[in-house]
């Protein structure tokens, strides 16, 4: 019973966290805590197989897939509070209260005392006892459940399936296409230059420098260029500052012609 009184508050707090936390990922985490605590409750009640399976299947696989989707879909979004079905919230509150009332009544009527009959049920070992029940007495229910699950899996596959209209383009096809474009339009077949090459910073908004010191436009993202937040080559300015300093020091020392600031020149001006 001590384990119950230790785990129960954690579970209640985590369950409230599922409902109340603002971020979907935090809700999912709280749910994982509830599931793990539940598994420990099973272990306390001499059901080690259920304990392991609860964690492997629910916490390890299903919850992980939830988390997976949540992370990829809405990393930072809080849910919109607009009702899509009219009166949904009201119905949900009423039904929730009714369900809660039923649950409280039923649980309150239950007799709480020491658990009996576990030794008898686990006489041949927990796993063997469970297997005996599943594959003898409840074999029909077990098979029916598995048939239902397989149907659901097939349904999901059918729904997610999309007929392919054209043959899949392999890596070879793509490479050939790229070379064809190079042969016909002179489009650069390789990767775009990365930002910051030979420039003073390697941040994404600093364009790479070409050998003549001018900047390469295509080395920065189009989004940044459109927003106008691309910093200038960050070199021309430095050069002029250095030149001024040198000139201030004296005209004789190490005079270098500044590179002509020609506009960016590159094959394949458009984005690939």
């Amino acid at each position, binding site marked *: 019973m001590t384990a119950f009184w230790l785990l129960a508050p954690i579970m209640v707090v985590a369950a409230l966290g599922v409902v109340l936390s603002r971020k979907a*990922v935090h809700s999912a*985490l709280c749910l994982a805590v509830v599931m793990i605590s539940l598994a420990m409750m099973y272990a306390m009640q001499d059901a*080690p197989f259920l304990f*392991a399976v609860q*964690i492997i299947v629910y916490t390890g696989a299903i919850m*992980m897939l939830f*988390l997976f989707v949540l*992370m990829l879909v809405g990393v930072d979004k809080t849910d919109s509070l607009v009702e899509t079905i009219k009166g949904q919230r009201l119905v949900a509150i009423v039904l929730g209260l009714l369900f809660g009332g039923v649950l409280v009544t039923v649980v309150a009527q239950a007799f709480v005392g020491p658990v009996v009959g576990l030794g008898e049920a686990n006489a041949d070992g927990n*796993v063997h006892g469970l297997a005996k029940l599943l594959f003898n007495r409840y074999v029909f229910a077990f098979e029916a459940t598995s048939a239902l699950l397989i149907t659901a899996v097939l349904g999901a596959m059918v729904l997610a399936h999309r007929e392919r209209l054209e043959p899949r383009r392999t890596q070879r096809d793509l490479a050939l296409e790229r*070379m064809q474009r190079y042969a016909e339009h002179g489009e650069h077949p390789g990767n775009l230059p990365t930002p910051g090459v030979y420039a003073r910073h390697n941040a994404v908004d600093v364009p790479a420098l070409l050998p003549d010191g001018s900047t390469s436009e295509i080395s920065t993202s189009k989004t940044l260029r459109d927003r106008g937040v691309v910093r200038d080559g960050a070199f021309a300015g430095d050069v002029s500052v250095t030149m001024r300093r040198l000139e201030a020091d004296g005209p004789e020392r190490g005079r270098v012609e500044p590179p002509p600031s020609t506009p960016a020149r590159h094959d394949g001006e458009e984005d690939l």
Partner: protein
Amino acid sequence: MSELFGNEAWWVIILKALLVFVVLVVFTLFNIWFERRVVARMQHRVGPNVWGPFGLLQSLADGVKLALKEEIFPKHAHKVVYFIAPVIATIPAFLAWAVIPFGPEVTIPFTDTVTPLQLTDMPVAVLYILAVTSIGVYGIVLGGWASGSTYSLLGGVRSSAQMISYEVAMGLSLVAVFIYAGSMSTSEIVAAQAEDTWFALPLLPSFIIYMIAMVGETNRAPFDLPEAEGELVGGFHTEYSSLKFALFFLAEYINMVTVSALATTMFLGGWRAPWGISQIDGANEGYWPVLWFLGKTLLFVFLFIWLRGSLPRLRYDQFMKFGWKVLIPASLAWIVVVCVMRRLIIDDDLDPTKILVVAGVLVVALLVVQFIPERRTPAVEAPEPDAFAGGFPVPPMPGKQPVAPSGAPVAPSGEKEA
């Protein structure tokens, strides 16, 4: 399963838990050094050899340095989750070792207390290991998400997908062992292998599938896609530094040892001495089995390092396809075969040696087929290479002379035209 499990004095349990912890941390430090030395040898280098005998203290020095580094919280990190993620990754890695058997029952020195060299055992011990490792995945995924960086997120998502898929193949390969041993408790599986042979022999396909799946499960090369440097910088731990990074590192190395120890326990007879040594009296008694156990585990760790030293990284889609379309169906089919075989053996309809003979004949037949020379089809005459096929330059194939556009062969280098 020994009656002692779960009924021991509190100080024995604490002592054993502490020993497991110490063994794991020391083994990790050793493994880092071992990996660096072995990989260095494979690459014709020397590896760490300055601090301590043979450079053994190098990883300790590295660990201290790592712990003293600056702790960085990225601006967009989700503070709480970012902080607890490494802890979630590390604790299950240690927990899994609660049920790994190091040896038989021994007397603790200076006392009369008899205890098995295993923290505890339960009827579902192997499932318990699978369960805690699946919790360990959370640490990686959450760390990736909470860093607030795209590289980390992608690394975390990759690793979760990878570990879930390969855990399925791993679990299925262990099912055959459960059927053979008639139990899921680690100590009973070791005992079953003492009566029978090591399960790696009769269950060779399971063993091979397990070895592939364990590399995928631990994110090690050639399956280290979640931290592919070329694509994802460092994957899920890109934004981590200092002790938090060290925890991830520790968890990865412990997981590597965990799956190695599990492979030893399930397929290579656990702590029992290998054939040849087991004939010596007392080889399977007292504290000697710890040596055999650690030796076999180290064998698997060496395999990990060997793989890392020799294989390039797989492409992600090929890797997933391999897991779902090859490993899982193969292990399902193999489980059916094992079930039928087991039933027939129990009913005395089939002699186990007969199976081995049939399997041996099959292997020999396969080998013989490999040596039959292929019938050579006459090679199709390759067309004259066109240096400007389709308008872009084409280098000649190896062994062919480059052809100039006009058709005249290019003069060999060194003979410059006047």
